[in-house]
């Protein structure tokens, strides 16, 4: 059958219309399901680690030496090209502080010696109800379905409202161009520019490649990472057995970093 131009255009037009209308109808009747069905079939990283709700446990009893903390911090900061800027305009994704500063409302003078003098690891809590996401005027900081609070460094306008919003001091602003302050640039992770805010991302880049977060990997079991929604996960098992604290629970942010005491 010879296809003249007129017939071809008619057929092409109808096909396009059917495609658009079908997609529109699908969006109307079952919003979002089409994309969901597609994305579950086609994964860019089939080896990616996934969870319904990521969470981290910090086993404070297992941190026995100062080197253990430093290893976690270095693993993170080297991998993510976090600059080493001295003074009060510093950048940090994970760091340590005393119990008194970590849990300011829970501290008193008669704590056990170990608790009183031990450093505690601090990082973004990846809250369920994150104030930083609520206040961001451009959605440059947003929350994924698996709970990770993310940053889009290319959209951030540097207004620093998220820093005022975060009650955990987890966010750092690039007051300067960070690149001259990075000892050795890791080519596999983007460096940032001046004027944007950054923080811990629970190593979403590593999770996508099937790797656990860098700090967890080097922690010799002192950091536990897993799916809080999965009854059989290690994080759930340990939380059933051990007493845990979260920072500032009364603020209603529902932090997802737990400290095993």
């Amino acid at each position, binding site marked *: 059958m010879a296809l003249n131009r007129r017939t071809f255009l008619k057929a092409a037009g109808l096909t396009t219309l059917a495609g658009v209308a079908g997609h529109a109808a699908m969006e109307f009747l079952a919003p979002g399901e089409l994309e969901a069905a597609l994305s579950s079939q086609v994964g860019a990283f089939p080896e990616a680690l996934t969870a319904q709700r990521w969470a981290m446990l910090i086993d404070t009893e297992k941190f026995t030496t100062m080197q253990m903390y430093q290893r976690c911090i270095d693993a993170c900061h080297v991998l993510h090209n976090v600059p080493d800027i001295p*003074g*009060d*305009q*510093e950048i940090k994704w994970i760091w340590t*502080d005393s119990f*008194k*500063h*970590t849990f*300011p*409302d829970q501290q008193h003078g008669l704590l056990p010696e170990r608790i009183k003098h031990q450093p505690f690891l601090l990082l973004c809590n990846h809250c369920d109800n994150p*104030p930083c996401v*609520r*206040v*961001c*005027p*451009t*959605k*440059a900081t947003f929350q994924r379905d698996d709970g990770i609070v993310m940053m889009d460094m290319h*959209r*951030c*306008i*540097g*207004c*620093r*409202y998220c*820093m*005022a*919003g*975060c*009650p*955990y*001091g987890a966010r*750092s*602003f*690039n*007051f*300067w*161009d960070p690149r001259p302050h990075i000892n050795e640039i890791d080519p596999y992770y983007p460096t940032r*520019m*001046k*004027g*944007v*805010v950054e923080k811990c991302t629970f190593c979403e880049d590593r999770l996508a490649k099937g790797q656990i977060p860098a700090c967890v990997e080097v922690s010799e079991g002192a950091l536990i990472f897993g799916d809080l929604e999965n009854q059989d996960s290690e994080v759930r098992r340990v939380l059933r057995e051990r007493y845990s604290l979260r920072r*500032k629970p009364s*603020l*209603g*942010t529902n932090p997802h970093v737990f400290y095993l005491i």
Partner: protein
Amino acid sequence: MLEKALQGNKAYWGWIFTLLVLIGIGFGFYVYQLQHGLGITGMNRDVSWGLYIGQLTYMVGIAASAVMLVLPYYLHNHKAFGKLVIFGEFLAVSAVIVCLLFVVVDLGQPQRLMNVILYPTPNSVLFWDMVVLNGYLFLNIVIGWSVLHAVKKGTRPASWVKVLIYVSIPWAVSIHTVTAFLYAGLPGRYFWHDSLLAASFLSGAFAAGPALLLLILMVVQKVSDLKIPKEAIQTMTKIITYAWAINLFMVLLKIFSAFYSQYPSKMAGFQYLFGGAGGEYMQLMPWMWNFVFLGVVSLALLVIPSTRNNPITMTIALVMVFVAGWIDKGLSLVIGGFIPNPFKVHTEYWFTIPEFFITVGVYAVGLLILTILYKVALGVQREVAT
């Protein structure tokens, strides 16, 4: 009508030139800030907003206070304000422009400013602040210009202008309310977390704003043929007195609820500001006690009728209200909210020389716009009178 701003005596051009020099210096430092980043300011990881956002907060109040002339004139037909309303509206225009500029100079990536419009985020108070500030700017430019045009032609303003004027009254309240919500809605920032912060902002603004306007008008009266009606001064100083009394009362309310309850986190902000956190961190302490002194003395001068009506003591009181208002909103509110930080650690802040000159430059832009608008308004009023 703008051509009226091009005719002036030597003093006028000297003033314009001074402002342009200040703008030039400020712009030079801004280019330096753009090149090197906000690291050149005194801001840090703990005190992440400083002088710029403080000025934004104070100037939003100055802008909102135009309503203290608009409302008595248009809703209560208070005739004494007739010739002055336009000056209130034009002060609002320049104050809002100053506010928007302070947002821009505070951004880490100002060239991405349009992201706020490209990705509108209604759950962010900053998005709404952008909406109400730009809306208020638009309202006051259109209203001021149309009313002035009507005066020039000897007609009454069109009826749609009346509608905009009525809209501008609640809108003025909205700009300072939304600006207070920027702070009052943050968990764990106890110094800001106050359901009545917006009310306290408005009371302070309705004192400091008219005080500034009256001071500016007294200068304008000296250099032009403007006559401020005596009755207008009396009404304005009464408004300032009541608003200032309410504002100081609200400061005391906050101190009571923090200290009688002995709530440590709520006391911490005041202990830092007024007590230097036990005497170790005293950067703001002298300012705060100056605020107390200026606030109390100015209130006394305003409450006593003889000192309120005496031009000299009244002028002193107005300057004191404006300076105290600046210490309260422009300096201590923003900085005090960040100290102590979420770890109960005190990191202090003081602005740097570049930060100071950028601030002066932004204010000079506001004064330049104010001068031009006032010059036009005065020119039209003189033209009509002759």
